[in-house]
């Protein structure tokens, strides 16, 4: 009944999914924060760049971005991101594509978090003579981050699910394995059930844990 199930293969595929998620999450957190900084900063050109970036990236299907990293960046511009075998290169390209896409949503979540920080906080910081970067780094962002744990958890869950798109350039993650299995074996419901369960195991705890964290760190006002 479970003859399609090669435990090593399955865990291997989900391990790739987890790695894709973790690397992309860290990357988009950094790039997304920088974008948010640009969008609220004093320099008009950077504000413009941030706005255009977010509005363009949010409106392109992730599939297009991922395929483009492979065809445009790797095949045409020759950026292999330091990898030398195809699986490694594709994995890194997929991470890059996921970061480019997800950071737009991280930026927007963070920006709305910045808006929840009371104006007085920033005014007080400026009265103390802090510069823009200091206000942002020491006063506003720490509070903003605490208020956006929940939206960020949603971005993270969406990212976990979005990693399946990496199979479009042949990254051997969970959806790639599932596609192969359902073409080969007749046990459709079982296979789909196993993969559905796998994703629930990944996304449900994320939501629960971060939901708890969000309550724990929320700024009481």
């Amino acid at each position: 009944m479970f003859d399609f199930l090669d435990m090593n293969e399955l865990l291997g595929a989900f391990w790739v999914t987890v790695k894709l998620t973790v690397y992309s999450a860290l990357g988009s957190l950094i790039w997304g924060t920088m974008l948010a900084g640009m969008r609220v900063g004093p320099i008009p050109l950077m504000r413009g760049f941030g706005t255009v970036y977010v509005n363009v990236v949010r409106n392109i299907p992730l599939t297009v971005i991922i395929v483009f990293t492979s065809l445009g960046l790797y095949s045409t511009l020759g950026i292999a991101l330091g990898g030398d075998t195809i699986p490694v290169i594709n994995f890194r390209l997929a991470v890059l594509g996921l970061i480019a896409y997800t950071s737009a949503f991280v930026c927007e979540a963070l920006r709305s978090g910045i808006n929840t920080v009371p104006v007085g906080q920033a005014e007080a910081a400026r009265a103390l003579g802090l510069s823009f970067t200091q206000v942002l780094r020491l006063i506003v962002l720490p509070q903003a981050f605490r208020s956006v744990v929940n939206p960020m958890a949603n971005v993270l869950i969406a990212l976990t699910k979005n990693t399946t798109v990496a199979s479009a350039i042949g990254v051997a993650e969970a959806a790639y394995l599932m596609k192969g299995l359902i073409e080969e074996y007749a046990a459709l419901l079982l296979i789909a059930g196993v993969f559905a369960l796998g994703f629930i195991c990944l996304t449900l705890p994320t939501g629960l844990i971060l939901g708890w964290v969000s309550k724990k760190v929320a700024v009481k006002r």
Partner: protein
Amino acid sequence: MKLRKVTAASAAVLSLALAATACGSGKKKDDAAGGGSEAGGKITIGIKIDQPGIGLKTPDGSYTGFDVDVATYVAKELGYKESDIVFKETKSADRETAIERGDVKFIAASYSINDERLQKVDFAGPYLLAHQDILVRADDDSIKDPKDLNGKKLCSVTGSTSAKNVKEKLAPKAQLQEYGGYSECLTGLENKVIDALTTDDSILAGYAAQEAFKGKFKLAGFRMSNENYGIGLKKGDADLKKKINAALEKMVKDGSWDKAVEANFGPAGYKNEPAPKIGNIVK
């Protein structure tokens, strides 16, 4: 009141979208209905629309390729006018179903005859003997034998049998890049991040023969498998099979077959096999 207007406007947009959808699907039904009708009406033939040299939808909406030429010839022999032929895209995975359901009268879409498919459909022909081969850059002489593919970067379409064939038998250490279509592979091959593209030599020849690629790529000439292209038709339709076979024989005899090969694969320097004998399947 403004709110009402907004709600009404949204409803209007939605119903418009719905209406458009209804129109769209209605049109498709009409097309499909043409498939089942007998002589005198239209004939629907399944082909590929994204393989140069085999079956390709050209920008003006017409179709070209060797399979298209064969299908047109056969349809004419069956008594249909050229204007009565309706070509329809049949993707590889859907070919058996399309025949079984009668969506198409027959299929000429780089459709190789094998035992698994013979369980579900009948084949007329074969009309072309192709082999799995690789396409490399014209100036690349490093691959002289399929074994040389070990350690090279090889491209093919996701889940294709030719990819499996190389991976499992010929060169297990080849790195495989999989894409949804061959033209994605060509970008990589052109820019030297991919070393070879593998599939049937007829398809590869079609790409190499394209105006934009003249002189850029060459076929290695490996015969890594035998692919007997046949015309797929409904199981048990012996009458149609006989008529198509007769048409194919006539096509070879009166020289149209050679002309079609020359027109579609010629520019690539593709050394085609001579026209196969009807019913002679090379294993």
